[in-house]
């Protein structure tokens, strides 16, 4: 298991080196301003990916992260437009993000609904509510004393933006949570078998519930960075960013079925993807083609491990004890429901 993980992370290391080596052929790649831009450009994606990682580890999914970001950004704009001070807006937006996360959590954990279906629904709902708040309009002119926090680098011209420090701190906290605490270890146990975890005394529901609250809070933080960085609050902010975040998590070696993955892997995947985006940007590759490449990366990151692994389940053994129930992300509640259905 450890050897497998290390192997995947060495693949990522090679990928990072390759991307940055390729970058050195592009004009201006190595310049300090470009490196800081490269890092800054992925700060929101990184925050969303760190929010997704623990959830995916438990075998669930949250596709609504980018819509939560969009809603919080629209809310920021609406309140700012209404004349509220930015210091008051920040806590309100954080609470809003946590509330949206708790709506997901309530539907998934209290009502026992599949996370996939719920978060596709709230993906639409939260984005829709963002449009309800702001319509097609945009709010700009955010306070100049806070904007540098999302745009500038330490000391003015170093390669390290303040926002990246925020990302690093969040990443470190998530790493501590996932790899160094009892709760973190139980995430893996839940991902490998929620029922076994429950019988082992892990408070599965409580842990899952808190992960969605964390996800909402991180999406709200990401929305503040996004809004200040672009100095613009729009209902379609970060539209489709869930793809990039999910791609980063899966490319980072996290299993979509849960129970496998590391923060280091996700961090390296983020670095590789940020580097790749920057190289493509410098080479004048359009945004749409960049999306194609992100989409392909997402598929490849799931396809490659499947193809290059001897598949145990190729011929399903006939002993029922060996037959594993087909696992599918976010289908845990489905299993529960089917049991109810069959327990007739």
């Amino acid at each position: 298991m450890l050897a497998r993980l290390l192997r995947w992370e060495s693949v990522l290391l090679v990928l990072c080196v390759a991307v940055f080596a390729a970058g050195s052929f592009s004009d201006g790649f190595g310049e300090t301003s470009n490196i800081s831009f490269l890092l800054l450009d992925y700060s929101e994606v990184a925050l969303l990916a760190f929010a997704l990682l623990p959830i995916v580890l438990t075998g669930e999914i949250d596709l609504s992260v980018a819509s939560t970001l969009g809603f919080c950004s629209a809310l920021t704009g609406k309140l700012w437009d209404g004349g509220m001070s930015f210091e008051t807006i920040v806590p309100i937006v954080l609470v809003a993000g946590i509330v949206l996360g708790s709506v997901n959590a309530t539907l998934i954990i209290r009502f026992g609904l599949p996370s996939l279906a719920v978060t596709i629904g709230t993906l639409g709902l939260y984005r829709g509510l963002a449009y309800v708040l702001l319509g097609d309009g945009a709010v700009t002119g955010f306070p100049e004393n806070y904007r540098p926090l999302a745009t500038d680098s330490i000391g003015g011209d170093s390669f390290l933006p303040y926002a990246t420090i925020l990302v690093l701190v969040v990443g470190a906290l998530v790493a501590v949570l996932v790899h160094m605490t009892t709760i973190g270890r139980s995430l893996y146990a839940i991902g490998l078998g929620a029922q076994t975890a429950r019988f082992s005394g892990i408070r599965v529901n409580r842990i899952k519930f808190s992960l969605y609250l964390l996800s909402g809070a991180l999406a709200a933080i990401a929305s503040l960075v996004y809004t200040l960085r672009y100095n613009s609050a729009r209902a379609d902010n970060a539209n489709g960013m869930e793809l990039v975040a999910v791609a980063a998590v899966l490319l980072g070696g996290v299993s979509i079925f849960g129970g496998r993955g590391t923060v280091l892997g996700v961090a390296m995947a983020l670095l590789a993807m940020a580097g790749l985006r920057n190289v493509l940007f410098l080479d004048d590759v359009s945004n749409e083609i960049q999306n194609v490449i992100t989409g392909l990366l997402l598929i490849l990151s799931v396809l490659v491990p499947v193809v290059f692994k001897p598949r145990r389940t190729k011929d399903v053994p006939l002993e029922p004890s060996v037959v594993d129930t087909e696992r599918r992300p976010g289908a845990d509640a489905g299993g529960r429901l089917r049991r109810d259905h069959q327990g007739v």
Partner: protein
Amino acid sequence: MTRASARESAFAGRELGIVVAFVAVVAAATITRPTFLSGQGIHDLLLNASIIALLAIGQALLVITRNIDLSVGSVMGLSAYLSGQLFLVDKDLPIVVVVLAGIALGAVCGAVNGALVAIAKVPALVVTLGTLYVFRGIDYAWASGTDTTQINAYQMPSGFLSLGSGSVLGVPNLSLIALVVLAIAAYGLHNFRAGRELYAIGSNPDAARLAGIPTGRRVFGAFVISGALVGLGGVMHAAYFGTINASVGNGRELAVVAAVVVGGVAIFGGSGTVVGAALGALLLTTITSALPILGVPAFWQRAVDGAALLVAISLDRAFMVRLAQRLRAERAVRRAG
């Protein structure tokens, strides 16, 4: 009440629920604006529902097998753009050729998804989230590569446009096409061996495989058929709206999945009907048409689609729990007696 009849009443309950909701929405809109239910009003309602219904029928086939296709909006856009481009190349092209080309392109996209899901065993959610962006990107690249970002009605033959706007005996052509597809899909799913096997795969994939069902081939087939229907939907979109750019169908996957789930197809597979999915599409598009009449801004549409999906799965869950409790109680009574 026996087990079978309890299940039947469950499904009748779902379709009844949609009809009740539909009547309520139509009644509210008609009271506010009486022309909502005029001949033209009904015509428009059917027309609006047709394309989404077609996509929902295909999606229902996949959801029944415990899969999902999030790339439908992008495939629809690609096929709509293809039909426009074909007419740009040759305006005298027979309409049937363009329709078939659109269907074929959709089927190819479906085959790509299906191959990744069925052969490479990658979860459908991940594959189609990826291809959503890949297909959309190809659409944009194509549109910007040919320097025709928008294709307009005057560049398309009138025969093609009248296919989209015309009607037979008051029923819009597009609705007739959707109804024919619905009838075939409903019959096939209910009576053909392959159709029944889709339910078996969705109920329990391992059991289905052990029972000798070629699960991979069936899932692949469902993706191809669904893709072909989405392709047809794209051509219909082009014929109906007459304006095509690279963003056709953007974000439609939400409405399609919502229609399927509202229509009573369980998101974990194994149950539901295409008729339900089509009714779900009719209900959602009717709500969308009724919103502005009831004084709700059009910006609410996306929120309503998402909320409808959430309400539908919550009701399903509540209903299933109640049903299970009732049947368990009945069994206890039978045992005691």
